[in-house]
Structures are given as structure tokens and as C-alpha cells.
């Protein structure tokens, strides 16, 4: 008995820790927890694996066996000789048409390409705050440079357009210390006057200066057209949307109701009907004899469409601000314009970023709708000239895959950027 109760039986040091059981560590544990944690999960996993396998076994040979360098579908099918494989050669053969449309002069392709590269440079300081602020000067100049590069013609048009803005801004900044409204409207008036004068001068000077070859709007096409419509309409609709949102929040009943009716009307109809308006109706409302480009009419309608949606997003941002912010601005003695510019809008816009980005992505996708009114954007090119040609009649997957991929890359990166920006602007502590 006594030997059994010997104190020396008690351990003086702890046992070395054993490794966890094999099923509770490493990849086995991960698999058990994430893939096979119950009969339902196991079933889902097996189904997903079967699905992935089916998808991969169907598409991979097609992708990997792709043909990249033939001139027609018949030639491509001949090379494939009955085996599965994609005819990506339609992309290499029609690459320029997919990007620039079929009418843009081919020796001028460098111009839209350069405009696109410059777009990245111009957008960078707006998107990333760490870049030197001086780059914003280039951003301000970019619309005029891009216009000149893409449309060509005489260089005086963009120069005088720019000059009008400069004159307007100078007048505005001289007067803004007295009253915002006076300065704002005088600025607009000054700009209008200088544009009017510039119009005369452009006509005088146009014949004497060297110019880039002018390209008509109806010759724009391909993915370039989507990019033009997307960038122009989003950048124009932001300021208009802000004004509409402020108008809808206003205490002045007439202004409020004008904004409400506009916003609700535009949001209530599909974009296609607005494009119909641009295509067949708008001409009736313009002075007789004027001929607007179709592309300009489409830009007007899409901008109206987008600004109504952006106005709603910003209104949400304005409504989400605590009332104290408005009262604080009032108690500092700021007038309406100052309060909005310095206190309300910076915060409201920050809250609205995700919504604005959603609208922009949606708008960029919706630019494909112009193919319905027989403009040859990327989708229009695919449905029209490419699929109708004898060479490539019947090659669908490759083209639509390419189009989806282009849009996916652009839209997905925009939404990733917005998520990054949201984290960046987060000032509350979590």
C-alpha cells in the first residue's frame, strides 16, 4: 500500500506537448473544416468539383488548341481538321476593327492610342492622392488634347475652347470674394463671349495652320467608342448630378420640383428609349438646319441618364450627413455656397463614392446599348461587320469572350479601386 502512495510518483515537470492528432492539423484540418464538415457540405464540394472538372475539360482543350494566325474561319477550321479548338485568329485578323471601328483611318490609329495612354496619365492624380498635385494641370488640359487627338481638325478649336474656360475662371476668381453667385454667372458669361469670339477666329485661322487629319464622329467605332462615351458621360454627369442633388434638397419649391421631375422621369425610362430619342426625336427639337452628330446627341442623352442616377446617389450622401454639420456651417456664418463647398459636399461625396462608382460601372456597361441604334461600338462591330463578313460568319464564342474580357477587366478594376479608396478615406476608427 505504502509503496503505491509514494510521493515520488508525482511528476515534477510537465509532459512534453504532443502534436495535435493528424486530423486536427495542417491541410487535413483545413479540408475537414472547409470542405467536408457535414454531409451537405461534402455533397456541395463534390458537386462543385464535378462542375469545375466538366467546365475545365470542355473549355481547356478549346482554349489551348486555339489557332491565332489565319485569315478566315474556313482556313482555321481546315487547320483544326475536326479537333476542338478556338479560332482566335478572328481577333488578330480584326484586332484594329474591334478596337477602333472599321472607318477610322488606319494610319491614324496612333492618335486614339496616344489619347488612351494620356488618359491614364491624366486620371492618375485624380485617382491617387499621393501623386504630385502639379499633375492636375495636365488633367485639366487633357480633355482638349484628347479631343484634338481623336477628332483632329484645326488645332484652334480646342485652343479657343480652353481659352474660354481660362477667361471664365479668371473672371470668376476676381469676383468670388464679393459674392459667389455674381462671380459664377459672370464667369459663365465671360466664357460664352470668348467662345463666341473664338468661333470667328477659328474660321479665319483654320485654313492657314497645319492640322491633324479631321475624323468624322460617325467614323468612330469599336472599343474606342465605348471608352469615349464612358469617360465623357461619367465626367460630365458628375457635376450635373451634384447640381441636381442639391436642387432636389433645396428649400425653393420650384427648383426642387424641376429637379424631382427630371430625375424621376429619367430614372423611370430605359436607356434604350433615351437612345431612340437621340436617334430619331432630338433632331425635331433643334433649330432647323443644324445637324448634330449622332455621337454628340448620344452623349447628351447618356449624360442626362447618368446624371439622374448620380444625383440620387449624392442625395443619399447628403441625407446621410448628420444635421449638426449643416447647423455648424450655418453657425460659422458661411453662406450657402461656402457651406456646400467647404463642409457639406466633401463629406457627402466621400459617403457616395461606392454608389458613384456603381453608377459609373453600370454606365460604362450600358454604352454597349448604342449598338442597338446602329452605332458600331465593340458589340456593334461584332454583330455587324465582323459576323456578317464572309470570312468570319459563324465564329461567336471567341468574339464574345474577348468582348466580355475587355469589359470585365475595366469594370472589375474600377470596383477594386473604389474599395481601395473607401478604405483609404475611412476616418472613423474601427
Amino acid at each position, binding site marked *: 500500500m505504502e509503496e503505491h502512495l509514494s510521493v515520488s510518483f508525482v511528476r515534477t515537470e510537465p509532459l512534453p506537448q504532443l502534436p495535435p492528432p493528424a486530423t486536427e492539423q495542417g491541410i487535413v484540418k483545413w479540408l475537414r473544416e472547409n470542405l467536408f464538415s457535414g454531409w451537405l457540405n461534402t455533397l456541395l464540394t463534390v458537386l462543385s468539383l464535378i462542375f469545375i472538372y466538366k467546365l475545365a475539360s470542355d473549355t481547356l482543350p478549346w482554349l489551348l488548341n486555339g489557332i491565332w494566325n489565319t485569315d478566315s474561319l474556313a482556313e482555321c477550321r481546315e487547320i483544326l481538321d475536326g479537333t476542338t479548338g478556338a479560332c482566335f485568329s478572328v481577333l488578330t485578323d480584326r484586332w484594329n476593327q474591334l478596337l477602333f471601328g472599321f472607318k477610322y483611318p488606319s494610319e491614324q490609329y496612333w492618335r486614339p492610342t496616344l489619347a488612351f495612354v494620356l488618359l491614364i496619365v491624366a486620371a492618375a492624380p485624380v485617382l491617387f492622392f499621393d501623386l504630385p498635385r502639379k499633375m492636375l494641370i495636365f488633367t485639366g488640359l487633357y480633355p482638349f488634347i484628347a479631343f484634338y487627338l481623336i477628332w483632329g481638325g484645326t488645332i484652334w478649336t480646342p485652343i479657343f475652347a480652353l481659352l474660354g474656360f481660362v477667361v471664365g475662371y479668371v473672371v470668376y476668381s476676381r469676383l468670388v470674394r464679393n459674392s459667389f453667385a455674381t462671380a459664377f454667372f459672370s464667369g459663365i458669361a465671360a466664357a460664352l463671349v470668348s467662345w463666341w469670339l473664338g468661333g470667328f477666329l477659328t474660321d479665319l485661322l483654320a485654313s492657314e495652320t497645319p492640322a491633324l487629319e479631321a475624323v468624322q464622329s460617325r467614323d468612330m467605332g469599336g472599343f474606342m467608342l465605348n471608352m469615349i462615351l464612358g469617360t465623357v458621360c461619367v465626367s460630365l454627369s458628375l457635376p450635373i448630378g451634384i447640381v441636381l442633388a442639391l436642387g432636389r434638397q433645396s428649400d425653393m419649391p420650384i427648383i426642387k420640383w424641376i429637379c424631382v421631375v427630371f430625375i424621376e422621369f429619367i430614372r423611370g425610362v430605359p*436607356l434604350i*428609349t433615351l437612345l431612340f430619342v437621340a436617334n430619331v426625336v432630338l433632331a*425635331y427639337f433643334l*433649330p*432647323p438646319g443644324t445637324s448634330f452628330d449622332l455621337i454628340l446627341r448620344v452623349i447628351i442623352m447618356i449624360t442626362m441618364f447618368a446624371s439622374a442616377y448620380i444625383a440620387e446617389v449624392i442625395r443619399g450622401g447628403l441625407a446621410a450627413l448628420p444635421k449638426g454639420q449643416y447647423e455648424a456651417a450655418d453657425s460659422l456664418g458661411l453662406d450657402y455656397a461656402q457651406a456646400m463647398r467647404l463642409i457639406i459636399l466633401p463629406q457627402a461625396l466621400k459617403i457616395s463614392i461606392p454608389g458613384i462608382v456603381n453608377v459609373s460601372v453600370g454606365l460604362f456597361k450600358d454604352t454597349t446599348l448604342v449598338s442597338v441604334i446602329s452605332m458600331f461600338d465593340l*458589340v456593334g462591330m461584332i454583330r455587324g461587320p465582323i459576323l456578317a463578313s464572309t470570312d468570319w460568319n459563324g465564329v*461567336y464564342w471567341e468574339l464574345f469572350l474577348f468582348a466580355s474580357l475587355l*469589359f470585365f477587366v475595366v469594370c472589375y478594376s474600377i470596383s477594386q479601386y473604389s474599395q481601395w479608396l473607401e478604405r483609404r478615406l475611412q476616418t472613423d476608427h474601427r
Partner: protein
Amino acid sequence: MTTITDPPKEQFRLSMLLNDTRYRSLTFQFIALLLLIAAFAYLGSNLITNLRAAGLNISYGFLGEPAGYDINQRPIEYTSQSTHLRASIVGIINTLIVAFLACVTATIFGVIAGVLRLSKNWIVRKLMAIYVEAFRNVPVLIWILIIFFIMTAALPSARVYLGEDPERDLFLGLFAFTNRGIVMPLPVFQPLGWAVLGVFIASVFGVIAYRRYATKLLYDTGKLLPMGWPSLAILILPTIIAFYLLGQPITLDRPDPLANRFNLQGGVTILGSLIALWFALAIYTGAFIAENVRAGIQAISKGQTEAAASLGMRPGRIMNLVILPQALRVIIPPLISNYLNITKNSSLAIAVGYMDVTGTLGGITLNQTGRAIETVLLLMLFYLLISLGISAVMNVYNKSIRLKER
């Protein structure tokens, strides 16, 4: 002694319209109104000048004239001799058909994908994330065209199903997938068949009554009756019994490969364009709905789940009784605006030749009569009415679910 006098009454001066914030808003509104009237007058006078120059007028008389074109999907009686008005109504019904089908399907896709995105299963979660991102970031028009291409170019012509020894057999003996569309059987009701349908409707009410009774019993006595299998039994059994007792009065008009040498006869054909539009809208919008559902479920704090669990509820009941009622409050408003988007996006039908209201009124009628202003105006009015109607419903709903706070 001091006398108290009234402060000098401020006189209204004209300059106060510009300088005094109390009156300045009047000035602004007046200017805005003037500008608006001027703009409308300008546009209107342009319109009148242009119409006169073209020898046109604004008139809706064309709606009464014969349309002269065929519509490939006619839910109501329509021939090419019918009027443009009737063509528009056919178009409206076709719009509502595809919008309804797409809304139902998109909800199913969206709810499944949204719930699965929160699954514990890694591979399912990733698959659903890929689905959502892939479909949200590609224009819906491209999806419509892709599915339309599958329906028309990738499927065989009806010929392969024909004859004694066809290249392909009907799927389950009932369905044929052809490049014109999917041919599927149509139920034919003999007089007694309607009785079977009546029995079925009665049993639906029976199920509702049973569930009410079970809930009442639970609240009154705490006794829990089984819900699942009795409901199912009440729903199915009487109908089946009635069906066989009345001598199988509902038959199927199935596609017959032997009746005709050139085309399948019998059954009903669902057009490829309808299917393309329907599924593209459903899959595309489903991706958006999935995000709403996920956000709605995640918006419910984890404490709610834990509180319910600590009351001893089982996971299924926690979902049904605690999480979903709260999540629906977050999910339903964006869900309804997604339905609105489906309805508006269904106007893309014109890209695949599905004859919805944009295809009839805004497409062929516009081209044939040249009445651009009138047709586009009517078209906008139709969509506007639907949107305003749906937002009215949404406002009522939002009011009804608003948190009742003290």
C-alpha cells in the same frame, strides 16, 4: 420714464430681392422658371417649324391603322391585319411575360448564390464569388447575345427530331431543343380537367389552413405539430386521387415527330429569343440580387444568432424566425429596384428580335409609320407608369416595415 417704441418696421425695398436671403430665393426661383419656360418655348417652336417643314403633324391616328406585320409570339389574338394599337398591346404583354419570368428566376438564382457565398464551404464560396463578379462586370447585352447565339446557332434545326428513326430523340420524350426555340408539351384540359385544377387550388388553401391551425395550436397549448410532410401530403394527394378518379382528364399535347415531315407539330414553342432574354436577365440580375442577399444577412449582427441559439433554437428555426425576418427588411427594397431594372432592361429584347413593346411600338411601328415622336413618347410613358407603380408599392412597403421605435 421710458417709452417703449416698436422697432422701426423694415420697409421692403426692391434691392432686397437680390441681397436679402429671405427674398433672394424668390428671385432665383423666378429666374429658373423663366429659363425653363424659355427653353420649352424654344424647343417647342423648333418642333413646330421642323414639323411644318417636313409636312408632319402630331397625331395618334396611326394607332388605329392596320399594322401589317407579324409578331412571332402572340399571347392574344393578333394578325397582320390588326391595328398598331393591338400590336403595342401584344408587345406590352410580351414585355410583362419576360419581365415576370426573369424576376422569378433572378430571385431564385440570387438567393441561392447569396446564401452560398456565406457558406462555410471554401470551394462553393469561391465559385459563387466568381459567378457574381463575372456576371456583374460584363454588359447584360453581351450575355443576351451569347445565350441567343447558343439558342440559335448551336442548337440543331427541328429536322433532326423528325421521322421514324430520328438523329436525336426528344428529351424525356417531351422536349425538343431546336434552333427556333424549345418545343415543350402543353397540358390540354378536358371539361373534367378543370375540376382537377379546382381540387388542386382547394388543397393549396387547405395547406394554408393547416399551417394556421398548427401555429394557433402551438401558441395556445405549446404542442408542436409536424409541418413539412403533412403540408406536402395535403398539397399532392387529393389532386392525384382526383386525377385518376375522374379518368385522367388532363392530357399532354406533346411535340410529335411523325405528324409532319418538315417541322415538329404539337406542343408549344418557347422562342429562342425569349429564352435568351429571360436567362440573361435572370443570371445577370441574379448576381446583383446575390450581393443584396449577402449584405442583408451580414447586416444582422451575430449577437442575434447567438441570442437565438442561447434560447435553445435549432439552426433552421434561427434562420426562419430570427435572421430572415430582419434580413428581409434590408433585402427587399434593393430587390424591388432590381425588379425594376429587369423590366427596363427587358427593352434590350430589340437586340434579339423578341417582340416586346420596344420591338413592336418602338421598332416596327416606328419604322413603318415614321411617327417617331409619338411612338417614343408612348413607349416612355409605358415604362414610366410601370416604374412609378413599382416605386409606389415600394414606398408603401417601406412604410409598413419601418422599425417601430419608441
